[in-house]
C-alpha cells in the first residue's frame, strides 16, 4: 500500500504571490499524490494557487473558508 504524505503549510498574513511561492517550495521534492494544505489569509490566494496548480500540473482538491482564513488543499501532480 502506498502511503500519502499530508502536510500543512502556514501562509497566513503573506500576500500573493508569497503563498504561491511557499506552496511551490513545499511541493518541490514531494511525491505525486501527496497533499499540502495551505492556510492563507490573502483572498488572492483563492485564484493564484489554483492558477499555479493548473500551469504546473498539480490539482486543487478542496478550498475551505474558515472565517477570515482559507484552506487550499493541493494534491501534487506527476513530475514532467
Amino acid at each position, binding site marked *: 500500500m502506498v502511503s500519502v504524505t499530508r502536510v500543512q503549510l502556514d501562509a497566513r498574513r503573506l*500576500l500573493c*504571490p*508569497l503563498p*504561491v*511561492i511557499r506552496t511551490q517550495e513545499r511541493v518541490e521534492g514531494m511525491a505525486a499524490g501527496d497533499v499540502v494544505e495551505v492556510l492563507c489569509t*490573502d483572498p488572492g490566494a483563492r*485564484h493564484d494557487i489554483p492558477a499555479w496548480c493548473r*500551469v504546473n*500540473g498539480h490539482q486543487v482538491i478542496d478550498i475551505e473558508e474558515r472565517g*477570515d482564513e482559507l484552506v487550499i488543499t493541493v494534491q501534487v501532480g506527476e513530475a514532467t
Partner: protein
Amino acid sequence: MGYNGRFNRNRVVVPMSEPRKAVALISGGLDSLLAARVMQEQGIHVEGINFYTGFCVEGHTHAIRKKDRDKPKRNNALWVAEQLGIKLHIVDVIEEYKDIVINPKHGYGANLNPCLDCKVFMVRKARQWIDEHGFDFIVTGEVIGQRPKSQRADTLPVVAHESGADDLLLRPLCARNLPPTRPEIEGWVDREALYDFQGRTRKPQMALARRFGFTDYAQPAGGCCFLTDRQYAVKLADLWKSRGERRYELDDIMLLKVGRHLRPRPHFKLIVGREDGENRFLQGYRKQFVHLFPVSHKGPLVLVDGQVDDDDIELAARITARFSQGRDADRVEVEVNTPNGGSRTLGVEPLAGGDVPKEWYL
C-alpha cells in the same frame, strides 16, 4: 558513425528529437507573452520564470483594500503562463534584490526604480537557472527604445554582458535589430522569423497579439513595480531618511503600500488605515508597533512607527480621532496599546483639519 545528438552547456546528452529549451522572463505584460509565443511557434520548449522582488504590483494590490476586492483578481504572470500553456516558476528574490534597490550601479530612473540593474539582475538569475535546469537559452520581451533606461540600444548589450547571459539572451521581438545570438547562429531558431520592433509604439505588439489571437492582456508598461511610483518612492526615501540608513525589511515595504502615512515629527510616523480592509491588514502588525484606535467612535487602526513619549502619543491620539467618525466631536476616547500588551485609554480633542499640515503627509 557520428553521434546523432548534441551536448548542451551542462554536457547532458540531448537527443536531436527533443526541442531546444528556453526560459522566458514572464512579467505578465504583453511583450513577454509575445516573445514566449514567438519561440513556441518555432518549436522551442518554453517555460516561464517570474521574479518576486517585494515591489511587484502583482498580487498585493487586490488583497488589502476592500474597494479593490471587487476587481478581477489574477496574477498576470500566471495568467500569461496559462494562455501559453507553459510552466511558470515564481522565484523569491526579496533578500538578494535589496542590494539592487539600495546600491544600483547604474542609478535610478525617475523615482527609486533601478530598472537597468534590475534587468541585469533578473537575466543573471535566469542564466543561473538555465544552467541548473539544463535549458539552452533565455528569452525576454525587451524591445529597443521601449523603455527610457533599461531598453535602449546602448543598454541592451549592457544587460546581456553584465548578466553573464551574453549570446544566450535572445529578444525575439527586436532580434533582427541586434547582432545574431547563439540560438540564431546555431540554427536553434530562425532569425528571419523573428521581429525588428523598436521604439515606444505599441502598435506592432498589438498587431502581433491579434495574429496570435490574444485579445485580453495586461498593459503594465512600466507600471508593474512600485518603485516607479512617485508617491511610493517618497515614502521609501522617508523611511531611509528617518532610519539614517538605506535598508528595509519585507514588512517595511508592504506597509508602504497601505494606509495614509503621516510624519508629524521627525522621530515618528503614523500609518492610518483608510478602510476596513486596511485596518484588518494593519492588525497583523499589532505586536510590532504601538497602535491606537478610537473606542467611542468608529475609526481607523493607527500604527506608530518610531520611538515616542507621552506628548507624541497624545498627538497621535488626536490625529487618530481626526480620522475617526468623531472628528467633529468635542472629545474622542482612543485606546493606546503597546506591543507588549500594555493598554490605556486617552480622552482627546480631535485635531482640526487645518492643524494637520500638508507637509505631514508622505
